[in-house]
């Protein structure tokens, strides 16, 4: 019944929490909260709460790019965060989210992976971006992407002494060149909404997540939901996302 009410409001251009269709909930960003991680951030968008931790390890490069560091992004939809989350390995939603966030970081060349090469073809730094959902109230993609980039931007690299990592010594900043931001636009009853809460997500027809850099370059896009979108709708959603990305970027 609540779903019906939310739908009815949206048909009239209203939202259950009185926000405007293109308005974000209150956003809070805190970095450096996990002292032992090389970088970390906690982002709250309304009641959605996500922590991202950055850990670095030594490893071998991918054979096709022997002079570049390795980036690995993972997400855990742990059951503490929502009655809808189960125990077990990441399902399709967690996997998709991790891959969308990863694309935003990778394609924007957020991290200067070449600077993470220690010995070409043999040894490089591996950067692990681990997304941990603490409370799910919608818009996990935007929150996770924001937390990931906030964490990367404030990450420091441990000292390397004779090919061994000295964990307690963080010596220099992780080389970050670009700052991508993700904005998800939901489509419902011919309205576009920004930052849906979970109950709104449950009634959306479709959504489009877009990652864009500070230069306005779109580096990743993902459509979700099982309804089709027209060309005009897609273009409008892209424009809206790029416009709103400037608001999110203020937090970085």
């Amino acid at each position, binding site marked *: *019944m*609540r779903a*019906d*009410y939310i739908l009815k409001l949206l048909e009239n251009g209203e939202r259950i929490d009185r926000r405007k269709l293109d308005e974000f909930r209150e956003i809070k960003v805190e970095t450096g909260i996990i002292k032992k991680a090389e970088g970390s951030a906690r982002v709250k968008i309304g009641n959605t709460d996500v922590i991202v931790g950055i850990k670095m390890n030594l490893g071998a490069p991918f054979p096709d790019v022997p002079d570049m560091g390795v980036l690995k992004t993972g997400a855990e939809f742990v059951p503490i965060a929502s009655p809808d989350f189960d125990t077990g390995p990441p399902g399709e939603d967690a996997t998709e989210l991790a891959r969308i966030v990863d694309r935003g970081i990778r394609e924007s060349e957020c991290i200067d992976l070449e600077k993470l090469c220690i010995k070409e073809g043999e040894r490089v730094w591996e950067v692990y971006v681990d997304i941990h959902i603490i409370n799910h109230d919608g818009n996990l993609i935007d929150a996770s992407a924001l937390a990931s980039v906030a964490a990367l931007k404030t990450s420091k690299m441990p000292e390397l002494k004779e090919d061994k990592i000295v964990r307690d010594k963080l010596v220099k900043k992780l080389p970050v060149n670009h700052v991508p931001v993700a904005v998800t636009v939901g489509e419902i009853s011919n309205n576009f909404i920004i930052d849906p809460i979970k109950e709104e997500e449950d009634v959306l027809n479709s959504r489009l997540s877009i990652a864009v850099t500070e230069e306005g370059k779109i580096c990743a896009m993902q459509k979700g939901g099982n309804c089709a979108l027209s060309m005009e709708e897609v273009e409008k959603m892209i424009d809206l996302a790029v416009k709103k990305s400037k608001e999110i970027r203020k937090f970085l």
Partner: protein
Amino acid sequence: MMTEVREIVIPGEILGKIKEAKASYGTFVEGDEIISKFLGILKKSGDHISVVPLSGVYIPKRGDKVIGLITGIEKVGWVIDINSPWLAFLYLAEAVDEYVDLKRTDITRYYDVGDMIYAQVSDVKLGNVQLSMRDQMARKLKGGLTIKITPSKVPRLIGKSGSMINTIKEKTNTMIRVGQNGVVWVSGEKIHKAVKAIKMIDEKSHIIGLTEEITKLLSE
């Protein structure tokens, strides 16, 4: 500004002795001591010591009036979600007065999945909860909005002889039905304001002077 709160006790906290008082709801007896079972508000009335939990799920009791959502249909009745760890069942005979030929009738003409009903708990036996709509007040609730509050706070929301809930209804020009199961249905003009007041009571039931705060909120 310091807000006055009622006395809060924690599980395991010793509240009194059975020589001097009677152990009521929310407490248990160990040896000669009365002990709290919950994180809740301590209530002493006469020589009864009880604890009103500040949170917790709804445990159905016979006679309770509840608001439920129909989630399933069986041959002889409906399955209802009453915001409780147990599902409830409404038998056809408890919902419809007239004779129904089951071979020819699709009972969804009476109630269907997604319908919200205001009903009474007629029987509770070990996780088997039965509802009835025989009571005069029972009905299908159309339109409006439902929200959930902590079941133990329902008395506070209703108020002495309905004083609190009536004030909210009047000042917001709404119809409100409150289920003992913590589900509240609101319909009418200033739904948002009514919901705000209801949520405030849910969050601040332990504060002395809540009535004044609600009055203030409603006159804004």
